[in-house]
């Protein structure tokens, strides 16, 4: 029977964890019970983007977009929408500020400013069906390349498109391929870097989970261009679902002859193997990644020689990241000019950003390069939740920096971000609000880099640890103003002398927070005060006795029994027991608990008082 409805349920990581699988199973059950299985097509797709609203679902042909579904919504949706043609209003996406009912996906503000190229099929096809990929012109670009184009022509096209690597450094893809092609060698490799290690970036995961064939096709085109017959995907062990879907896609592609010997009878042969990482951030660095594929400790080595000259097992190797590779088929199909027409002068095409942190619509968005931060955060992201004030965004993970409110109208492209001391990185955008302490954030990233340093070179291994200890001192209220100068000088030395990208960029979060939020550092040092109320040693939780109603809610929730007071009596928190976990603040029904100065400050003040008295 002809299908009259396509029901696409998101099976991306976020939706899965909000139990989209249960919703899907319930649909299967209800559709069966009502005899609708033949006329309604139920498909599980990859990530659709608005992860905060999961589980999400789209119904075609009308495009109704459902959010936050539970099993209980299934009956009414089938009854009202699938049978009677009236979308079930209660769970249709409505923008939180307007609460107006929208019926079509394109009217959802979250999608309006987006331009989906790499993510076009994520959430629109069944990632485990090669047929649905082919229906969307899948493998057509590969067919065109191997039967009609010379490797030189493909590289020329890539150079013309202006595409730059989406993994972080922004090196032109075409140029990388040109070097790979120029290198002498009978054996060459193409490697897909799917070791998405930057905290806050999850676009590669979404592409692998939602549209794995696009990565395979991109790798095959790259391999043809440089003359490789073997490829590796190096994927993080933390992404089991991505690995599963990729393996399934590889099997299908092999079965159809899209991988293997003599592809499209062109004489070109190529196959791909998946290598699982084992949890080391430094393996995102290309020379470390190659060491890890070879089965060794993932330690970087100096460049040159570049991988394109001497890579895996000494053979020329080209390494591209997932998002870069997924865009390639679109460049071949639509032409370099089309790609180059999107974006800015030096940053072409679209970029996927992962929005997270203190923003209303968390999730994945794809926009033309050059869109402003304001558009990204407010028009697409929906602004800051709970009426809080925006403080900064952090881009580029542990290698990146922070952008404060004053630069909200900066266009998002490689050069503008670098100029601000932040970087594009892999596209993780973490939104920070007034409750975030910038010194704490800097310390957080340093802690990350210290733990992930491979330990090979001294500046990174020792220098970062020193920087971290200085930050710790400041967060404890024991810092001195000279420490700031010391931090800065250490940062510059480490940047200049580290062996690999990890060390060379690790001081960035400190430098950029010191540049834009020096006042917060000074408050910690001069006043022993954490303006955001985060640093545990500089705050205490205090019960405002004029507000406390003695309900005991706080005392009952306190995990360490630091709160005393009988029912109907004023409660009191013992700062020497309190761990500053914040549970009580949330529980208090009358908002009687506030954040006061910490022990360090009180100590300093009492000493001062004592000194004044003795004088």
């Amino acid at each position: 029977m002809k299908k009259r409805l396509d029901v696409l349920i998101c099976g991306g990581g976020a939706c899965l964890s909000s139990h989209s699988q249960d919703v899907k199973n319930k649909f299967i059950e209800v559709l069966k019970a009502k005899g609708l299985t033949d006329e309604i097509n139920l498909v599980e797709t990859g990530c659709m983007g608005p992860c905060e609203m999961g589980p999400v679902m789209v119904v075609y042909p009308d495009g109704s977009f459902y959010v936050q579904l539970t099993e209980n919504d299934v009956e009414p949706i089938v009854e009202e929408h699938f049978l009677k043609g009236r979308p079930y209003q209660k769970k249709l996406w409505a923008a939180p500020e307007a609460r107006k009912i929208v019926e079509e996906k394109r009217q959802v503000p979250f999608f309006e400013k987006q331009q989906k190229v790499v993510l076009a099929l994520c959430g629109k096809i069944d990632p485990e069906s090669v047929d649905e990929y082919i229906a969307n012109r899948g493998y057509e670009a590969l067919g065109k390349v191997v039967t009609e184009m010379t490797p030189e022509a493909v590289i020329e096209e890539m150079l013309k498109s202006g595409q730059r690597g989406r993994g972080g450094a922004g090196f032109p893809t075409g140029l990388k391929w040109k070097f790979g092609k120029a290198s002498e060698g009978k054996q060459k490799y193409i490697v897909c870097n799917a070791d998405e290690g930057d905290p806050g970036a999850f676009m590669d995961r979404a592409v692998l989970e939602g549209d794995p064939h696009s990565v395979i096709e991109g790798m095959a085109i790259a391999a043809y261009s440089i003359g490789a017959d073997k490829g590796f995907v190096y994927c993080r062990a933390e992404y089991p679902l991505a690995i599963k879907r990729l393996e399934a896609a590889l099997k299908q592609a092999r079965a159809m002859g899209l991988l293997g010997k003599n592809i499209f009878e062109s004489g070109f042969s190529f196959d791909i193997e998946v290598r699982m990482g084992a949890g080391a951030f430094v393996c995102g660095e290309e020379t470390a990644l190659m060491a890890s594929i070879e089965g060794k400790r993932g330690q970087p080595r100096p460049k040159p020689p570049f991988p394109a000259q001497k890579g895996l097992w000494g053979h020329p190797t080209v390494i591209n990241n997932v998002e870069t590779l997924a865009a390639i088929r679109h460049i071949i199909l639509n032409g370099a000019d089309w790609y180059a027409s999107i974006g800015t002068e030096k940053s072409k095409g679209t970029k996927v950003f992962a929005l997270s942190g203190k923003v209303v619509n968390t999730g994945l968005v794809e926009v033309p390069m050059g869109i402003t931060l304001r558009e990204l955060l407010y028009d697409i992201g929906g602004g800051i939740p709970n009426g809080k004030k925006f403080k900064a965004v952090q881009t580029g993970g542990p290698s990146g920096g922070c952008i404060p409110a004053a630069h909200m109208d900066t266009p998002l492209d490689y050069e503008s971000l670098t100029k601000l001391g932040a970087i594009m990185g892999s596209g993780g955008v973490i939104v920070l609000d007034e409750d975030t302490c910038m010194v704490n954030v800097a310390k957080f990233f340093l802690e990350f880099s210290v733990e992930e340093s491979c330990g090979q070179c001294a500046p990174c291994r020792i220098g970062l640890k020193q920087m971290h200890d200085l930050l710790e001192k400041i967060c404890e209220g024991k810092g001195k103003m000279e420490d700031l100068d010391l931090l800065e000088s250490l940062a510059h030395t480490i940047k200049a002398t580290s062996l690999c990208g990890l060390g060379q960029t690790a001081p960035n979060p400190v430098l950029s927070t010191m540049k834009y939020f020096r006042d917060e550092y000074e408050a910690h040092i001069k006043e022993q005060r954490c303006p955001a109320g985060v640093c545990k040693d500089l705050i205490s939780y205090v019960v405002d006795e004029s507000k406390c109603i003695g309900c005991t809610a706080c005392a009952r929730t306190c995990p360490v029994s630091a709160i005393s007071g009988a029912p109907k009596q004023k409660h009191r928190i013992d700062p020497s027991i309190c761990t500053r976990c914040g549970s009580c603040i949330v529980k208090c029904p009358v908002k009687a608990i506030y954040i006061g100065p910490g022990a360090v400050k009180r100590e300093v003040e009492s000493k001062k008082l004592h000194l004044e008295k003795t004088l």
Partner: protein
Amino acid sequence: MKLEDLKKIREKAEKDIVLRDGKSRIKVTVGMGTSGIAAGARETLKAFLEEIEKRGLHDVLVTQAGEKGLSSHEPVVTVSEEGKGQVVYGNVTRDVAVKIVAEHLVNGSPVSANIIEVNK
């Protein structure tokens, strides 16, 4: 696999996902309000889906809507064609549905006996 084989797979596969593109020549809307369903609209809808599949009409979209208020004529079906306006049919039983597919959708001549309204 040859390039032509890929094309063939694509042509076949495209038809299975046509709903997601919103591209179609003709849209058939079956009124599925309470009285429509009571009058047998479910059967009508099924008949359309089966017949369209049988004839391989991949550019026809079948969808459902609430009722138009023409209870006495249920099941009510609207056929809309790009640039040609709408034809509203009443009392569309299974047999009438089959007839509409054969005469209207395939040959372009509406089934006059069941027409209750024409909107240009």
